[in-house]
């Protein structure tokens, strides 16, 4: 296949003293959803933040559509076509739903606009005048997704979208993402909920201790006895 849309090579990054990413390689091709699994604290969010420019990598490269992103600021990266659905949603709690959405909006021909997002996520339309802090967790997650859609990005980074949600809300979010996948959305999906990840992704990467230690298609993963152990970080793979 052609060159990947997102191509991360030997990426190292960290905070102050601790090196969190110790040489990560990862690729997402156009129209593909790639899941990134791993327990807490292995560096998944750091990886997402490095791609988005929120953490400055110490070495390695992040190429997006052939261009180097490493060293650019988050706003520059966002304008090149990446969007983030962050861990913990990070909704602007004092802004209304609609203001949250408008803030993220970058128009593109044939892309999403406010109406199409409301159509896709009708709950947001109902609550468009409510402030961010008045939403339930599931609604906030939808808003975070809506924000990413309105950015009309070419690649969306989902950071644990099911985290901290009630089972019903997890199902809803999962079906929204599944719907987007049908529309050929390219995405990197960080998850701890294996069930959700396996349902939504084309390929799976497992990360432990700042490295990707396992990579496979979803089908391979399901049938591989080492897979679950890799996922749980039990024993060396």
């Amino acid at each position: 296949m052609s060159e990947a849309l997102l191509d991360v090579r030997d990426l190292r990054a960290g905070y102050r003293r601790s090196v969190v990413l110790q040489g990560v390689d990862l690729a997402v091709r156009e129209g593909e959803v790639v899941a990134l699994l791993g327990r807490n604290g292995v560096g998944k969010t750091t990886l997402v933040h490095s791609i988005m420019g929120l953490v400055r990598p110490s070495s390695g490269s992040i190429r997006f559509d052939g261009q180097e992103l490493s060293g650019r600021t988050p706003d520059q990266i966002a304008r090149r076509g990446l969007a983030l659905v962050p861990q913990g949603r990070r909704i602007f709690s004092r802004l209304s739903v609609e203001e949250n959405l408008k803030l993220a909006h970058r128009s593109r021909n044939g892309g999403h606009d406010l109406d199409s997002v409301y159509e896709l996520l009708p709950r947001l339309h109902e609550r468009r005048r409510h402030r961010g802090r008045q939403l339930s967790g599931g609604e906030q997650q939808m808003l975070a997704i809506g924000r990413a859609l309105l950015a009309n990005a070419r690649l969306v980074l989902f950071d644990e979208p099911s985290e901290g949600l009630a089972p019903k809300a997890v199902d809803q979010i999962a079906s929204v993402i599944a719907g987007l996948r049908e529309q050929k959305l390219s995405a990197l999906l960080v998850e701890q909920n294996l069930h959700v990840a396996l349902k939504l992704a084309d390929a799976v990467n497992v990360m432990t201790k700042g490295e990707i230690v396992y990579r496979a298609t979803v089908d391979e993963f399901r049938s591989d006895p080492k897979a679950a152990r890799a996922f749980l970080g039990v024993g060396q793979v």
Partner: protein
Amino acid sequence: MTFAAVGAALPGLLNEHLVSILNGLAVGMLLFTMAVGLSLIFGLMDVLNLAHGAIFLLGGYVAFQVIVGEGQSWLAGLAVAVGFGAVAGLALGGILRPIRHRGHLDQALLTLGLAFVLSDLATIFWGSDFQTIPSPVFLQRSVEVLGQFYPAYRLAVMGVGFALAVVVYLVVERTQVGAVLRAAVEDRAMVSALGINVGRVMLAVLALGTALASFGGVIGAPILSLSPGVDAEVLILALIVIVIGGLGSIPGALVGAIVIGQVQSLGTALVPQVAPFALFGAMVIVLAVRPEGIFGSR
């Protein structure tokens, strides 16, 4: 709200001290122009701009130079001063940039040093004598309010202050620009991940805040007179206003300004002996009861 409560509790008070109340509003509105910028800058950047008073003073001097020195119109003076304030804000942004990563106390210290330098530069250019900008000719009269005379200029200041409060409120609460601002106060990194250049937003807010301070210096000059020392005086008042109202809150700045205006005016009228203490007393009480200020959130 304060207004209504006072009026209801003491029916006679309103008539007897109407002028004091009115005047408290005028003083409050003048303080608001100063405090709102200070508060916005703190809310967004975590920088307590102790040079805000110096910019107030310099803004007044710049307008004085244009209006009295060059004989230009009041409006021209105002425009030049506001422009000057905005440029000063941009410069301040540039100066603060290298120490952004240090704590906000270091940044406060830097602005304290700037305040020293700026106010001294002002005395080099304009001396230490009092300089006053006469109020615009059409406002140089008194208006009768319930049998007492009241300076038209102060009514105008009050009106402009209110208008400014409304405009600032609307811009921040109702426009896209304002939404960016509110969002950035809450989560700067996320705003930038949405593709918005937060650095530019912060510069804009700095420029707006200092332009407002400069504006305050111009409209305050006919009332206060400009001289060294006015900068510290006004800065301390504005700090009290935003601490009472809650750092970073626009409604807080408005309410704080009105409260302090009334303490200074109505308070002096009612209990002149206590008034000098009331200002700081009010702040100590607010901080003791509600440490984050009336509208503050921590």
